[in-house]
């Protein structure tokens, strides 16, 4: 059985000033653990690897999209105040899920698309890490059948 591969962190050296997530990091992490509850088990290096993948994916997108993402996360943070009297980061798991479900099924297509994009980034960061792929039992091998039958 091959050892679990280590994640590469191409975005790890990114300066803080270039980071899209830095100003909204706490909200982003709260969204990630709602989308993928297993992310609660991540340690700080796991989070850094997750966020590096997201930052790399965002780096090839236009600055306008970076601003939209930050704005969307801030809306998510404040949206529950109307309903629950607390910000998203202060909510429990079930209430957070309700907020995200509301966005996922929103009647306005643009809002659904915004949530889809955010959800995609969360999934990219979590499942894009080789450790996560290994943990769910995904273990491809370039040697294919030969490796499996060995």
């Amino acid at each position, binding site marked *: 059985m091959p050892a679990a*591969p280590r994640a*590469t962190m*191409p975005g790890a050296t990114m300066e803080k000033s270039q980071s899209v997530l830095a100003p909204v990091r706490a909200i982003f992490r709260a969204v990630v653990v*709602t*989308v*993928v*509850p*297993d992310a609660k088990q991540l340690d700080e290096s796991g989070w850094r690897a997750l966020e590096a*993948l997201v930052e*790399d*994916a965002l780096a*090839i997108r236009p600055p306008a999209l970076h601003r939209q993402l930050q704005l969307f996360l801030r809306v998510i943070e404040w949206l529950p105040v109307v309903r629950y009297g607390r910000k998203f980061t202060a909510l429990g798991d079930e209430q957070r*899920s309700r907020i*995200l479900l509301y966005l*996922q*099924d929103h009647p306005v*297509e*643009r*809002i*659904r*698309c915004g*949530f*889809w*994009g955010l*959800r*995609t980034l*969360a*999934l*990219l960061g*979590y*499942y*894009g890490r*080789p450790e*996560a*792929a290994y943990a*769910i*039992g*995904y*273990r*491809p*091998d*370039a*040697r*294919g*059948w*030969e*490796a*499996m039958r060995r």
Partner: protein
Amino acid sequence: MKRCSYDIVIIGSGAGGGTVAQELSSLCRDSVRVAVLEKGPKLRDEEFTGREVEMATALYEDGGGFLTAEQTMTLAFGSAYGGSTVVYTGTSLLPPQRVLERWNVPGLSFADVEQRARKYVAENNVHLLEESLLNENNRLFVAGCRQLGYRVQQFPVNLKGCRGSSLCNLGCPNQAKQGTNRLQLPRAEQNGVEVVTRCEVQRIENKKVFARVSDKAEGSKGEASSWEAGDYEIDATAVVVCGGAVNSPALLLRSGFGRSLPRLGRGFTCHPAFIMVAEHDRPITNAVGHPKSFYLDQFAESDHFLLETCMYFPFTTAKAMVGFGGEHSRLMRAFPRLQMILVLACDEVNEHNRVTIGGDGRPVVHYRFTREAIHGLVRGAITSAKISFAAGAVRAHVPVSHSPTIERADAGRLDLIAQNPDFKPGKLSISSAHLQGGCAMGTGPTDSVTDSYGRVHGVPWLYVADSSLFPNSLEINPYLTIMALADRVAETVRKDARALL
């Protein structure tokens, strides 16, 4: 600005550009200078690691996540030496006669396209995989189809020495897939064609090609370009555009050809698709073996969908499933027990669906799902779930259902989904890898962009040779048809060369 000149410049190196390069390379013997300009990099064999994000970033435009203007679909197309032939699964189907006859392009006969496609069947080692190399993900699809009385068929594939890594869509780590990066481009280079990577063409003007060559970014994959980084003005006696159904129309629009060609960018189709995932009660072989060995096309005409076996990677799979949270994670943890089926809609040309350019000159793809496409995706998802249950799955994830997880005991309610599907663009993860149209063949500028030989109307030195030539959806995987049409365009360039060069 650096200057150089060639007799023939080919833009793009995928199924179209690679074929044209090979077919024109014999002209090099007569001192004709031919160059292929490829936007993407050329990777070394050892750089194909099979890691999902790493390889998608290296080989696909926008990492495989090129978004439509509506942001309701992503398009996956290659950007590398060999174009999309590096990242597809090698499935090689002959063009369907009924579709080519429906295209009704004057001067384009089914017999001619089929004959040319067969040439590439032989050249690319297209064959059926032997039974011992078929994994359970594929076998279960076959078993389910047969149980239901469906006419399942095996994909011919262009492989040589396949070891079953299952990593086709991330570039074969064993170089078994016979794409243009393995066959046509190396042959063309041997014959004297120059292939320039990391070279993005910005516009074409009156027999001049303006391009920019980029440096290899630190830490990125691939070889450096053979040309020094910088801007180039390239004189060309003939230009063959092979950038694919997104980049070819966009390049011609940037170059101002839209003024005389009102159909430029129109007629875009793409077989929008999503994945139906089903869970079995035991591990199956899914991440080993060729991922796409069978298909079902018997519903293409009646219900506008195709089904294909598939096996994707963790992030792609997670993205493809709707929803989030505990149930989503539970299904992901069942990865070794997952069966996957790709549902593709056979979309028709629609006036809204087209390629334009943004203010920065980049391609913008406008796409709305037609009623037929939605019908196809819904019926395809239901049929896929039935196939999986017939093959023994314990539950299925049907993305168009209000409650996506359907237990085997509830399989009887699958048909009810069609009465009230949960098809919300922006909620579903829909993607496409069969991009077609935008420079359609036809009779003149009012109905098309090129003639049936890929000559751009009114511009005798300019040709198109890729899937953008398709006047409507092909309704099957387009690779061999692109090569057949590119072969035809190359023959035309050779004939025209006497007058042009």
